[in-house]
């Protein structure tokens, strides 16, 4: 009897199929995108030069600044979403000569390794991933495919308190690798694996990554282009929360037991479904649009799980880095001591100290390594974002883990931005620089989101307007820009609901701000292993800012409504305009509060722990 997990009931979920490219839609997007950018310039020009309320500059300037920064994002999005450019699909490779220049070597079938990296995940969960990895098919029997469980938790049976990962690996007949330390976390684990394996191509799977049988068949063909360094497949979470009729949520929370009342609630709210993918975990927008469209600039970056790599590319980077590291240390020494004989003496130590590190030891090792590979001027490595889903994985199931995971992404990317900014990186093309910059820029969003969230509150309590007048002029510039922007995004993300994404874009402001502060304070970004299980802690600390902002907004609205009723409100239209924004803000902020208190339906849930 195999162990039961909460996600067992989602086993049969089918992945989405990738958006089909349509050139007319792309043209439409490009047209609307340019129109949006032009209208944005007109709007901001008017805003900066004519609209600022001189009596409330303390309010007007931050707001217009926030709008300008947000406009920069709009430009970046249009640039990023410019076009699809899916790479040509080719049949799977058989011989080494198909993927690299043999240079006089004897040909042989390629060797492929599959790495399953684990740290502390339930061994039975890893077993499922192993079983699925074993089911991966390949048309050529002489192509050697080896599966390795890379256990950074050292669960080889030495500690009776821990589960025995080694035993599971042995039972499943796959290789098992451990190391005696955790240096470099996942990147270190991969380094260790690469030292002990020989595959020409290797796939990285996480403990919860369940590869589909077609995983290799559909991806190895890309390596026929000998410049392709890695292929990333979309990460698809098959355990996102289900949509639930609003009526049942109401009945459950209000503990309604009267049958007639239940029927009434059902008839009123039964058709409205809520709580679908409550954590906004569905990464479709990211993989199917953002990353996939980066193929156009050869700027799709690696995201770890579900990727296949060319070993020679990553080793080339590692060896070069090794040499560069020694050179740098040597120069440092040379600056300190002029005498060259001292350097010769110390060189031995330098060489011994330096390590060969394939994947950068960094909290965002995958994106950092991608930048380094893209920036390699001699090799001009190419990356590929494969459009179709080739594996499924688990998402975070509680807000605390969710926040920690996303905070790590944010802090990792920002850390790269501050220490080794891709914009100034020699070797990247302009398109690549802008693409990486877009990723970094998006993590600065909390600055302007915070201003957008607080400006209605500021209005309600100060009754000062950031603009001089709600005249026709204002709407003449504002409305076309906003409408065109919405249409542009709709065309750019055609086929994907951006509802949750937008909500989380806004409600993420707080933890993103915290991530930003962590990096600015110079703290080391820790690599937290994302817990893949359920921890229903009350996550109040993450939603406290949301509760405060929503409360202030509601109190402000009430206060203004009273003023209006008493006829003492100086600007009724201002109240209307701000109230409109507030509704959108509150809805967006509330999603995270709902997520914090969300629990799966109790009726059919199986306890995973």
């Amino acid at each position, binding site marked *: 009897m195999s162990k039961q997990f909460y996600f067992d009931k989602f086993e049969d979920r089918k992945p989405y199929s990738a958006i089909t490219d349509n050139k007319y839609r792309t043209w439409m997007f490009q047209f609307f995108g340019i129109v949006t950018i032009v209208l944005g310039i007109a709007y901001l020009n008017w805003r900066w030069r004519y609209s600022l309320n001189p009596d409330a500059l303390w309010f007007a300037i931050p707001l217009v600044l926030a709008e300008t920064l947000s406009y920069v994002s709009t430009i970046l999005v249009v640039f990023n979403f410019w076009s699809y450019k899916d790479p040509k699909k080719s049949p799977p490779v058989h011989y*080494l000569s198909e993927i690299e220049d*043999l240079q006089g070597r004897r040909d*042989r079938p390629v060797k492929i390794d599959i790495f399953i990296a684990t740290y502390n995940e339930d061994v039975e969960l890893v077993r499922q991933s192993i079983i699925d990895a074993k089911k991966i098919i390949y048309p050529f029997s002489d192509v050697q495919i080896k599966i390795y469980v890379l256990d950074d938790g050292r669960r080889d049976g030495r500690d009776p308190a821990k589960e025995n990962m080694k035993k599971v690996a042995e039972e499943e007949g796959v290789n098992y690798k451990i190391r005696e330390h955790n*240096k470099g976390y996942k990147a270190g684990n991969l380094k260790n694996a690469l030292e002990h394996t020989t595959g020409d191509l290797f796939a990285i799977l996480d403990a919860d990554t369940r590869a589909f049988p077609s995983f290799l068949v559909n991806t190895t063909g890309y390596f026929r282009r000998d410049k392709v360094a890695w292929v990333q497949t979309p990460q698809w979470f098959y355990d996102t929360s289900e949509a639930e009729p609003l009526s049942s949520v109401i009945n459950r929370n209000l503990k309604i037991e009267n049958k007639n009342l239940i029927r009434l609630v059902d008839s009123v709210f039964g058709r409205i479904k809520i709580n679908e993918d409550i954590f906004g975990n569905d990464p479709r927008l990211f993989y199917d649009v953002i990353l996939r469209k980066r193929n156009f600039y050869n700027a799709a970056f690696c995201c770890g799980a579900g990727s296949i790599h060319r070993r020679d590319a990553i080793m*080339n980077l590692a060896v070069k880095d090794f*040499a560069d590291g020694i050179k740098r240390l040597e120069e440092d020494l040379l600056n300190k001591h002029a005498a060259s004989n001292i350097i010769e003496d110390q060189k031995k130590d330098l*060489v011994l100290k330096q390590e*060969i590190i394939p994947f950068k030891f960094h909290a965002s090792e995958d994106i950092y390594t991608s930048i380094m590979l893209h920036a390699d001027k001699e090799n001009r490595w190419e990356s590929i974002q494969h459009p179709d889903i080739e594996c499924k994985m688990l998402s975070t199931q509680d807000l605390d883990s969710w926040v920690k995971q996303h905070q790590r992404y944010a802090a990792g990317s920002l850390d790269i931005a501050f220490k080794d900014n891709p914009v100034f990186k020699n070797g990247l093309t302009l398109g690549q620089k802008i693409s990486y910059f877009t990723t970094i820029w998006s993590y600065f969003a909390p600055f302007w989101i915070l201003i957008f969230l607080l400006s209605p509150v500021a209005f309600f309590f100060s009754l000062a307007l950031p603009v001089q007048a709600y005249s026709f002029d204002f709407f003449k510039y504002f409305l076309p820009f906003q409408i065109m922007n919405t249409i542009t995004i709709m065309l750019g993300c055609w086929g994907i609901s951006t509802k949750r994404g937008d909500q989380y874009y806004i409600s993420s402001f707080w933890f993103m701000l915290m991530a930003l502060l962590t990096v600015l304070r110079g703290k080391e970004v820790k690599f937290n292993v994302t817990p893949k299980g359920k921890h229903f802690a009350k996550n109040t600390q993450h939603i406290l800012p949301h509760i405060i902002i929503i409360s202030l907004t509601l109190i402000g609205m009430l206060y203004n409504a009273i003023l209006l009723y008493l006829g003492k409100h100086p600007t009724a239209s201002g109240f209307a305009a701000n109230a409109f924004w507030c509704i959108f803000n509150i809805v967006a902020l509330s999603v995270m509060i709902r997520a914090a208190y969300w629990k799966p339906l109790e009726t059919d849930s199986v306890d995973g722990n």
Partner: protein
Amino acid sequence: MENSLNASQESDKALDRLIPEASNDSKLIIETKEVRSLDDSINLETNSPTISPTVQKDESSTNAETEEIFQLRGEDVKNTLSGVYFQGVQYFDLKNVNFINNTGIANLIDLLKSLLEQGVVIKFVNVKDKIKTKFKSLGLDSIFHFS
């Protein structure tokens, strides 16, 4: 720190295997064997029968491990290359090496480091120009010594 400790232990073993003169470990069976291209990371010319010492692990150690050990990065390099140890310098003959890929270079770096830790310097002889160029392009020419 832990890592370097580990590496030094490994390199002890590596050194024993590599320098038959210095080793009297009874567990090691030293035999000569025609070398095929064991791994493509360092490719030997297959036509010319090259004789080089090959070290295999004793049968008494776990059988399942044999293959894995054989794959250990660095191990196969040492097994594949023919070398002579003389007065603190380990000479490797790269006469038959026509091609080296980046994994192979990483292997050589590991080898270099493990020997350096013992105070042994590596020198490569009969290195083909193509390979020299490759080392140079990677910026490794100051670390590896060719003669």
